[in-house]
Each structure stands twice: as structure tokens, then as C-alpha cells.
């Protein structure tokens, strides 16, 4: 019931986010309409950070308690980390072509984000190739914690290295530099993406529980 409600709220927020991105937020004076890609590009990477936070907590929880529930939460969030990072990379690339004149460049922000995608892809691969569930969960937990170390590198890459990617406009110590209407449209989309993550993660958790039950029945 709570999951269904979460799904409904997320759907409404996604619709509100689309309306805000295309109907409320103004056309950017410099970039034109292509700037509207930011309303999914930024929420997708922020949601990936939230998903990695869940992987981190789930992984530490599993290593601490050895309870499968923690591992399932980490596994569900790990898959969604890959999904949201893939959206970030794809939408950034689509935005980059008309804005920078290239689909891809080995800029520190882009490279560290691509590395995040590869780490969590390896995380999923590791889970699928190690047959013993206990060992798979332990190895995955260690890799999940290691992968989270890339998040501060991504965030501070624009300060530590000279990059083509613009510096932070929202997650910064000073006030955001964006127009308030654009900031509101972005905030609605961040809420919508985080809500969608929470809904999808709860459904994936349910599936992992059902799979574990089916497997234990098969072994009886």
C-alpha cells in the first residue's frame, strides 16, 4: 500500500517536473532550449548519489550484521545507481554536442562519472558471477563501499582540476547562481527523480525477496 502510494506520488512529481521544465522554466538566454536537458541531467546524478548512499549503508549494514535484508537493499540500489548514472552520462553527452561541439571529452568531471558507472557495472557483474550468495554479498559490499569513494572525487573534480564542465551551481557553500524559476523547476525534478528511485528500489527489493523465497523452496 505504501509502495503504491509512493509510486503514485512519484508519477505526479514526474508530471509536475516535465511541466516545470517545459512550461514554467524560461528558455535560457545563452544556451536556448538545450539547457532544458539540465532538468533531467542534474537530478539523475543527484539521485545516483542518493542510490550510492543506500549502497554504502546497506553494504556496511551487511558486513556488520550479515543480515540478507541489508544486502538486498544494497543490491537494489546498486542496479539503480547504474541506471541513473547511465542517464547522467547519456543526457550530458546529448547536451554536450550542441553546446561544446563534442559528444565526449576526457574532462575530469566526465571521466570520474564514467568511472563511477564502470565501478557499479562491475558491482552488478560481481554479484552475478560469484555463485555462493554469502561470498557474492561480501565481495559486493566491499566494492560498493569502495565505489562510493568516487562521489567526492566527482563533486570536487571541477575545483581540483581545470575542466570544461562548469563548476557547481547548486551544491556549493554559497547561494545557487541560478535564476529562481529555473531553480524551482530543478528542485521539482530532483524530488521526482528521488521519489522514482525510492519506488523502483522498493519494487526491486520486493523482487529480490521473492527470488530468495523461490530459491529456498527449490532447495527444500
Amino acid at each position: 500500500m505504501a509502495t503504491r502510494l509512493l509510486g503514485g506520488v512519484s508519477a505526479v512529481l514526474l508530471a509536475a517536473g516535465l511541466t516545470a521544465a517545459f512550461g514554467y522554466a524560461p528558455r535560457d538566454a545563452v544556451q536556448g532550449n538545450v539547457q532544458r536537458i539540465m532538468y533531467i541531467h542534474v537530478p539523475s546524478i543527484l539521485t545516483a548519489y542518493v542510490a550510492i548512499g543506500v549502497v554504502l549503508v546497506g553494504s556496511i549494514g551487511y558486513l556488520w550484521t550479515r543480515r540478507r535484508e541489508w544486502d538486498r537493499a544494497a543490491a537494489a540500489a546498486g542496479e539503480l545507481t547504474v541506471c541513473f548514472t547511465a542517464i547522467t552520462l547519456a543526457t550530458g553527452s546529448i547536451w554536450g554536442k550542441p553546446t561544446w561541439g563534442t559528444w565526449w571529452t576526457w574532462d575530469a568531471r566526465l571521466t570520474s562519472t564514467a568511472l563511477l558507472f564502470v565501478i557499479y557495472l562491475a558491482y552488478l557483474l560481481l554479484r552475478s558471477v560469484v555463485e555462493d550468495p554469502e561470498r557474492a554479498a561480501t565481495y559486493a559490499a566491499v566494492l560498493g563501499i569502495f565505489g562510493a569513494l568516487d562521489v567526492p572525487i566527482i563533486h570536487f573534480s571541477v575545483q581540483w582540476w581545470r575542466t570544461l564542465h562548469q563548476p557547481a551551481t547548486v551544491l556549493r557553500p554559497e547561494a545557487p547562481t541560478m535564476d529562481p524559476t529555473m531553480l524551482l523547476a530543478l528542485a521539482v525534478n530532483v524530488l521526482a527523480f528521488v521519489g522514482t528511485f525510492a519506488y523502483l528500489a522498493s519494487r526491486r527489493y520486493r523482487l529480490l525477496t521473492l527470488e530468495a523465497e523461490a530459491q529456498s523452496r527449490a532447495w527444500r
Partner: protein
Amino acid sequence: MSHWDFVLAAYAVATLVLAGYWWRVERRIRALEALPPDGT
């Protein structure tokens, strides 16, 4: 300067990834929930 094709492509990619993931998870949940309690 409008670049609507790029904007639509970006939103289409995001929709495909999220809707595809959701559809795949729901399909597998339905298949497992349809199994009888003894798993036969």
C-alpha cells in the same frame, strides 16, 4: 539555437531507461507471485 531534437532525445533516453527497468522488474514480480506456494 532551439535544438529540440537534442532535448527530445535526452528525455527519451531517460524515459526508456526508467520505464524499461520498471517494466522488467514488474514482469518478474508478477511471474514469481503467480507461482503456487510450494513452487511447483
